[in-house]
């Protein structure tokens, strides 16, 4: 009798399954033996609970990418708290059955299929997994991936670059007409003549460290521009120069910059190969080499211009102990306090980028400084405006579409 009742109960359980309850071996073409793929055990379960499938499955081509990616989004199953997770099934337009392509844990509503072919149409089904069964959603609409030609998420960057470039061009043209542009005195740059003159009088070399950043750092490029101007003064004053480099590319660039500066001053014969040196790529090996040069060759003036990290204080403090006149400049806010402490003059942040214009006094470069100032003014006004709005308690985030 008992056996009869159990058999009856198990038979009753099967018709209770909704039409969306699909057993895996019948619907999944591959990979049927995957360990995380649930295998139907309904025949072994006397009573299996049934779960509602997820709904509203949408599939779109991932925006602003190189193609081959489709994004899925769905609404969680009402039984999300009880299910084991979701399985993602995909079918290409020429396929006959859905194939499992991935899975997620419960509570997740998105999935990215990164293994699709461009220009091929796909449909997706998201299935809730529970009791070893799959409770499948309705299939998504057909979707095709393709590569984009423009990154719409970067429109704001493009607009800013265009606006800044136009401002720069306008001010450069204005400067070309001969209009005098005011530039405030930058103490560190005003002292360059004194620094070079001091070294000449003392008959000692000038040490110029172009930072520890490779040539892809903007601070290093700015440092190369300043090196060119400093080298011109050195050629003029007939002083000696030491430019140690951490990277092979900065070595070749700084060598050319110094050589060109000597040529432009009409003194190519004064340039010596030993002025520009390659040292080592090791960060603290480089710091040790610089401190060694300071202690042995006792430069009268030290320039630390470019990108620096933890070694900045080691070099600047050693220079201070040797009694050298020191000018530093970096855009690294963490190293600025060390330079301010140990050096006579420090170019803070943007002053590093203004140095070339300041030293050369070329109208075109001075015009570009004005563009920087206008850019900062615009950003400051925007920041001020948003601060006022924030004080007034107005929440702009929903209006801007920010979650």
């Amino acid at each position, binding site marked *: 009798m008992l056996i009869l009742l159990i058999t009856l109960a198990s038979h009753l359980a099967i018709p209770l399954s909704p039409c969306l309850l699909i057993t895996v071996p019948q619907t999944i073409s591959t990979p049927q033996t995957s360990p995380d793929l649930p295998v139907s055990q309904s025949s072994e379960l006397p009573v299996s609970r049934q779960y509602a499938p997820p709904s509203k499955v949408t599939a779109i081509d991932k925006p602003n990418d190189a193609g081959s990616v489709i994004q899925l989004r769905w609404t969680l199953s009402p039984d999300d708290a009880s299910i084991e997770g979701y399985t993602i099934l995909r079918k290409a337009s020429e396929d006959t059955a859905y194939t499992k392509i991935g899975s997620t844990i419960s509570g997740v509503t998105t999935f990215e299929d990164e293994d699709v072919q461009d220009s091929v149409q796909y449909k997706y089904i998201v299935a809730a997994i529970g009791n070893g069964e799959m409770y499948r959603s309705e299939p998504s609409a057909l979707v095709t991936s393709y*590569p984009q030609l423009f990154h719409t998420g970067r429109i704001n960057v493009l607009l800013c670059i265009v606006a*800044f470039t136009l401002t720069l061009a306008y001010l450069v043209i204005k400067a070309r007409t001969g209009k005098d542009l005011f530039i405030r005195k930058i103490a560190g740059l005003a002292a360059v003549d004194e620094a070079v003159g001091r070294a000449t009088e003392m008959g000692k070399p000038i040490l110029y460290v172009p930072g520890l950043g490779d040539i892809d750092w903007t601070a290093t490029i700015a440092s190369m521009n300043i090196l060119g101007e400093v080298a011109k003064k050195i050629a003029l004053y007939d002083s000696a120069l030491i430019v140690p480099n951490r990277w092979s590319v900065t070595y070749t660039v700084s060598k050319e910059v110094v050589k060109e500066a000597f040529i432009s001053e009409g003194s190519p014969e004064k340039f010596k190969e*030993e002025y520009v040196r390659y040292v080592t790529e090791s960060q603290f090996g480089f710091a*040790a080499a610089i401190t060694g040069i300071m202690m042995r060759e006792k430069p009268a003036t030290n320039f630390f211009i470019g990108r620096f990290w933890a070694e900045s204080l*080691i070099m600047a*403090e050693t220079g201070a102990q040797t009694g050298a006149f020191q000018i530093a400049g970096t855009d690294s806010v963490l190293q600025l306090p060390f330079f301010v402490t140990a050096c006579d003059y420090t170019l803070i942040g*943007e002053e590093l980028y*203004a140095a070339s214009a300041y030293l050369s006094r070329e109208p*075109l470069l001075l015009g*570009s400084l004005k563009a920087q100032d206008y850019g900062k003014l615009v950003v400051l006004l925007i920041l001020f405006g948003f601060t006022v709005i924030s004080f007034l308690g107005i929440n702009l985030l929903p209006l801007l579409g920010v979650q």
Partner: protein
Amino acid sequence: MKRKLPLAICFITGVSMIVQFFIPHPTSLEFSSMIYKWIIVLMALALILAIGNLIRHHGNKIRRKKENWQYSIVTLSGMVVMATIGLAWGIDPDSLYQRIYLNVMAPLGGTMFALLAYYMASAAYRSFRARSLEATLLLLSAFIVMIGFMPFGQYLHPRFPAFAEWIMKVPNMASQRGILLGVAFGSIATALKIILGIERSWLGGKE
């Protein structure tokens, strides 16, 4: 021509890379990848020049018996020994090259880094002498921040930790952001100036 060619290459490459930034198409990514491969090739060539310079500089010092020329022997010997070991026996994790690096180079680097603590002490002594208004402000704020972040700071005054945090989060953060704002515009302006050929210091100035 000597000036115009580098300027033209700089302009074309610079503009191409800016345009590439806005195009996610695979062709654009391939172009970017190709440029980066060229950079690697250029770096390898530059390394040959750099090592040549290193050998020439130290070789001259040894040959002319300049002051402290003995150090140059150590430098050149180290380079030759490491290069030979690396080329002969490889640079696998268990290789002799890696063992020398880990047991000699790494501790030496660590030693230099540890010296920072002593340099900080001497720099702090110099900066904390209240010789000007700025130095006095620096001394005061550093004192408050240090005491505030120490466990016993709250026993000196219950508001010390909060005040120290305020200094870090408001005046310190505001000035840092101000500097970063200037740096951002300076970076963009420098890049544009070089791409557009306005900045020519790297070519020896305007001609």
